[in-house]
């Protein structure tokens, strides 16, 4: 019995021989009892192995996400948001620098766009200092009610500057024409002041709203994508 015969017998047992090889082996088996004996041994071993009971797995070997270290996958659009932090920082600095430069920017814009727009500003700086003292000095000796009104208005000049000016405008016709003109000027400059102080924060606030809306929409979009990808993953 050589190695080759052993392999042929084993393959024959499993039906792995070609028909011609099988026929040749079968004719040899009829004349060679040793071959028959080895074939029986191989068959016996195979039968025993096949009869070996199949054990059931002692437990389920199903895997948990923790076992395989799985994390929810990132949304497909994730690369687009990879530089979101950088972009946010950049926008933050741009916003800051625009805000810091805003007064100068506004001034230069005012001077350049129209001379007319610059005039009220000049008045607003000069007018109160020039007109206030004469108005006060003239009003005091002429009428007591004017004094009392001025005194009443004095504690709150900053809060109600327009009303003070209009009061004086009402009072002054009795005293002097020049003062009336001055009061009118002051009135105009204050209105101009107000008119100018309103649009100043208006321009950045549009951008702020645009940025804020963009940020909120982006955040909601990102959160929705994340959620949907986690749901799909589950």
């Amino acid at each position: 019995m050589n190695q080759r015969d052993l392999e042929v017998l084993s393959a024959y047992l499993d039906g792995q021989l070609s028909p011609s090889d099988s026929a040749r082996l079968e004719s040899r088996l009829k004349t060679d009892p040793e071959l028959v004996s080895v074939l029986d041994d191989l068959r016996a071993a195979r039968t025993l192995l096949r009869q070996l009971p199949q054990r059931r797995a002692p437990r389920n070997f199903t895997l948990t996400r923790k076992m395989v270290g799985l994390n929810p996958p990132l949304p497909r659009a994730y690369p687009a948001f990879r530089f979101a932090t950088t972009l946010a920082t950049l926008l933050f600095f741009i916003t800051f620098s625009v805000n810091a430069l805003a007064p100068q920017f506004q001034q230069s814009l005012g001077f350049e766009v129209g001379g007319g727009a610059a005039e009220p500003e000049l008045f607003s700086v000069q007018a109160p200092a020039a007109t206030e003292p004469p108005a006060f000095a003239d009003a005091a000796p002429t009428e007591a009610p004017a004094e009392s009104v001025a005194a009443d208005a004095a504690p709150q000049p900053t809060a109600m500057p327009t009303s003070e000016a209009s009061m004086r405008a009402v009072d002054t016709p009795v005293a002097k024409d020049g003062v009336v003109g001055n009061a009118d000027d002051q009135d105009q400059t204050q209105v101009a002041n107000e008119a100018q102080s309103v649009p100043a924060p208006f321009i950045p606030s549009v951008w702020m709203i645009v940025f804020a809306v963009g940020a909120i929409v982006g955040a909601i979009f990102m959160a929705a994508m994340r959620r949907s990808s986690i749901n799909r993953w589950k």
Partner: protein
Amino acid sequence: MNEQALITDAQQGNLDAFNTLVLHYQDSVFNTALRILGDEDQAADASQEAFISAFKSIASFRGGSFKAWLMRTVTNACYDELRRQKRRPTTPLEPDAGRDDGEEMDSPRWLADPNMTPEQKNEADELEHAIQHCLNNLPLEFKTVVVMADIQGMDYTEVAAAVRVPLGTIKSRLARARLRLRECLQGFAELLPASYRLEGGHAAQ
């Protein structure tokens, strides 16, 4: 079970699809590990390791027999386990009383076959232990091939794919493994119960 669809899903990271495959193959995987290692606890550990490693590397599966691919993973896990044992031989903390006179009462096979009488069970256990003893004495590469072919019923090409050796080598290893097992089992012939007598008059003597 649409195996191919489950494999494709598992390759895309779908753990539920993979777990369906686990439930389908876990008994085969566990039995293979059990016959190679000869120890239930080690076989359970190796099976678990095999499935974890299979999930992690399932992207590398390029078609063919999935069972063969899985068996390769199991045998690798078993080889790792055997290497670990060689490095750190352990002695059990408690004496294994149930080993000598048969399985413990909560053995899964015993629960699965409640109609067996204790005598039949003892006979079956004796035979199983005898076969396992002979399997343990085989060289590892012979044992792997004979377990896959004769215990798992895989065909030659599947075994060759799992072990990654030529078909001729599989035939040769299988033939020699069967002969060695037969010789080894002859030593247990008188211990074997009548219902498990070997086939053929020559072999039974």
